[in-house]
């Protein structure tokens, strides 16, 4: 693999509309994708809410960006990991999510973190 290609994992940890973290994180992912880096995105804790279906932000005057996660595939960002515990403790299942993801145990996501060149939390 090209030396200029780094393995980079973005970890989404916050609910989407209460702060700018998730949106900025998504922007960063798209920018890095343009540089053809080896990207993965892990959704843990409140981060899983970013992928919730049927988000409608019209009433809060915020840009809705949930659907942008669906576009990641088009940028070759295909490694989307969701922490099973985080999803279950929020009463959600895979059916509640906008995109196809890999549902993984925390230990497995933790193991994949150790394989990265860089891990960035949002």
């Amino acid at each position, binding site marked *: 693999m090209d030396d200029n290609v780094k393995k980079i994992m973005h970890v989404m*940890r916050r609910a989407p509309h209460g702060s700018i973290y998730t949106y900025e994180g998504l922007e960063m992912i798209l920018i890095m994708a343009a540089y053809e880096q080896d990207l993965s995105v892990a959704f843990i804790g409140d981060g899983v809410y970013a992928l919730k279906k049927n988000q409608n932000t019209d009433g809060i005057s915020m840009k809705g960006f949930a659907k942008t996660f669906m576009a990641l595939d088009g940028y070759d960002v295909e490694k989307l990991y969701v922490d099973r515990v985080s999803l279950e403790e929020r009463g959600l299942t895979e059916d509640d999510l906008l995109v196809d993801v890999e549902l993984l145990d925390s230990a497995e996501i933790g*193991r994949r973190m*150790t394989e990265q*060149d860089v*891990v960035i*939390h949002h």
Partner: protein
Amino acid sequence: MLHTINTSPFESPAMEECIRFVQPGDPVLFIENGVYAVQNGNRFSDAIAALQKTSPVYALQPDLDARGISSVDAEVKGIGYDGFVDLVEAHQVNSWL
């Protein structure tokens, strides 16, 4: 992989989330308001004790001192900035901001 936590566990789920993902043997370092986690006898002492069964736990001494925390959970190692640098040199960093 070195995990750093910089928020109070009373304010943020970062520590409890981190603990779930840490691989056995990986060191965990508490810095800034994160050091409140290791104050002896708080609500998180059991979690810290459990974590220590598989991982070494450190707290940045200047941050403990700045917050008046003199009694920390057993076997939590207070380290200075030089120790922080040693850890960063030896491990890749996973900063749970």
